[in-house]
């Protein structure tokens, strides 16, 4: 559809040769009243890859993933999962997909072992209870009731219930939201293990570091559309610069005119967010001295100056002019 072509960076660049397509949706539309949650969205996830939908809250990530999971029906567009269709091959698809939803709470009174066993009973094939619990590192919690688990343990149990049927595709909707750093890392290594076994993952997240460290490819989603697509490295490289220099002036002093900053050597882009100014720079050893010279001539004082390697957050900023977290 017109206007929906993603700003693709080297489309399909990360495709493992001969891997085949696990998930595909074309022209996907979902409306809630006046709100268009998903707006002619196109997506292709290859077998064996970990694909991330990255975007702010309300971007349409959850709606998209739930349509692919067969929990919502689209108003328009086609969805193809493992070469099968929702509405026709549901039973077969359910056996082959592992799903973790954002808000599921299991029964407080049941134990970890009982919940896993319950979900295991739903699938014709799959792993043993002990095997799956040791895979997610919950074997010591087997007899603990759900109510007594920590947030990270609950999330790992949710993943255990998604993995218990040995799925071909694993769907994860914001799997690490609200978790402490250690729990997040535990979950990441668990997912890497699943991938090593040849599994396909589609996950949504609004953490750039999660997308960067887990995903082979990332689609940046905003307002129901894919606005950029590629590997994390490709997306960052698309900024044309690897570094970001941020600075602010002491109170009461104005920032220099962006038009004065843009021609500085090594600077590719300038953006102003409130009192902070960010320079996207390819060569900071040129950009920083030039910036300091400029400020010195003006006799103004810096409040702070920092530099960091460019991240997907900067890509999102570059594309939309907004931050991911508060967009």
């Amino acid at each position, binding site marked *: 559809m017109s206007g929906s072509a993603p700003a693709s960076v080297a489309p399909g660049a990360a495709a493992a040769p001969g891997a085949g397509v696990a998930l595909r949706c074309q022209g996907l539309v979902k409306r809630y009243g006046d709100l268009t949650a998903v707006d002619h969205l196109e997506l292709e996830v290859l077998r064996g890859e970990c694909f991330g939908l990255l975007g702010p809250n309300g971007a349409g990530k959850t709606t998209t993933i739930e349509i692919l999971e067969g929990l919502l029906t689209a108003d328009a567009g086609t969805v193809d999962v493992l070469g099968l269709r929702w509405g026709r091959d549901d039973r077969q698809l359910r056996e082959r997909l592992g*799903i973790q939803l954002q808000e599921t709470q299991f*029964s407080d009174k*049941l134990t970890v072992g009982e919940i896993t066993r319950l979900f295991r009973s739903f*699938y014709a094939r799959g792993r043993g209870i002990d095997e799956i619990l040791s895979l997610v590192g919950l074997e010591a919690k087997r007899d603990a009731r759900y109510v007594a688990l920590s947030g990270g343990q609950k999330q790992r149990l949710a993943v255990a219930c998604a993995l218990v049927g040995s799925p071909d595709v694993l769907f994860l909707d914001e799997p690490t939201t609200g978790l402490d750093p250690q729990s997040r890392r535990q979950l990441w290594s668990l997912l890497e293990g699943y991938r090593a076994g040849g599994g396909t993952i589609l996950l949504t997240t609004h953490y750039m570091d999660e997308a960067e460290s887990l995903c082979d490819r990332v689609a940046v989603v905003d307002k129901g559309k894919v606005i950029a697509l590629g590997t994390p490295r490709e997306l960052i490289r698309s900024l044309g610069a690897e570094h970001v220099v941020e600075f602010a002036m002491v109170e009461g002093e104005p920032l220099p005119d962006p038009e004065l900053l843009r021609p500085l050597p090594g600077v590719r882009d300038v953006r102003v967010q409130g009192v902070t100014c960010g320079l996207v720079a390819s060569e900071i050893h040129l950009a920083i001295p030039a910036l300091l010279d400029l400020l010195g001539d003006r006799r103004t004082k810096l409040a702070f100056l920092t530099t960091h390697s460019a991240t997907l957050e900067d890509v999102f900023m570059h594309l939309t002019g907004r931050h991911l977290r508060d967009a």
Partner: protein
Amino acid sequence: MPEPRLIPIVELTMARLREFLREPEAVFWVFAFPLLMAFALGIAFRQERAQEVVVGVVRHEASTLGQQLKDAKGIRVRTLEPGEVDAALRRGQVAVVLVPGPPLVYRFDPSRPESRTARLVVDDVLQRQAGRVEPIASRDETVLAPGSRYIDWLIPGLLGMNIMGTSLWSIGFSVVHARSRKLLKRLMATPMPRVQYLASHLLARLVFLVLEAAALLVFAWLVFGVRPAGSIALVAGLVLLGALAFSGLGLLIATRATTIEGVSGWMNVVMMPMWLLSGVFFASSNFPDAAQPIIRLLPLTALVDALRGVMLEGYGAAAIGREIATLTICTVATFGLSVKLFRWR
């Protein structure tokens, strides 16, 4: 694979049973509360006590009235000081007061049936002791009809009410609870056949039903000697049919509700008229004739009437055909509608 193949409906039912048994409060309300209620009401309405009349005798030096009445059957004597007479009558502590004469005075309120009875009983005893000869020869033949006490009548009502309450609450609550925690949505994302989920609620319900119905009936038999006049199998069949009808109703109430508060409100709206009108504690025939057709349509009326028919009158299935039909229609209609309307999200 070393582990045996697991069956979804078995695991789902086991999960329901575990959830219930790990909730001590629920266990109390389902099992202990009905027994306590039966016990309390059975004691309060014991008939042996009502058969005794309590009479007050005003203390008097020369009188032997108290002595004369003390050994008479069915009479209990309280000696009163002259100043206590009015208060004792007003408070209902005595049915009649005897003021020694001559002439002997009976003080009582004639609008109270028990007072009139007490006066006749006491007078009869005193006149005979004084040597009255009966002009007509007579003999009393007392008939103690089994199953005619209030407790005999109450137990089928309590059984019906208990079946209604536990079926509605347990199904309605657990379904809405699972929906509000997004657990239903998660279950929908598995290959588990949906009908097995609904069936597991029913199965778990029936397991507890056997226990709670048996507990009440055995309790009533041991403590009050209540015995069904008709077939035990038919009573069991009615208990089962009643549970199905109310489980269906519970499921129907829970098809759309997303919060516990919401479903509780609807439960009360559905149950309140039946508590009041279906004759659990007092005969529903006391309500106006115009209301009777509606009262007879209520599933709890059908269940309680059918249980009383079998337990008190010894009816067979044919005699309670209408009640059985009402419950069957209720079961089929509520399950049919529930499956159609059920919302998993």
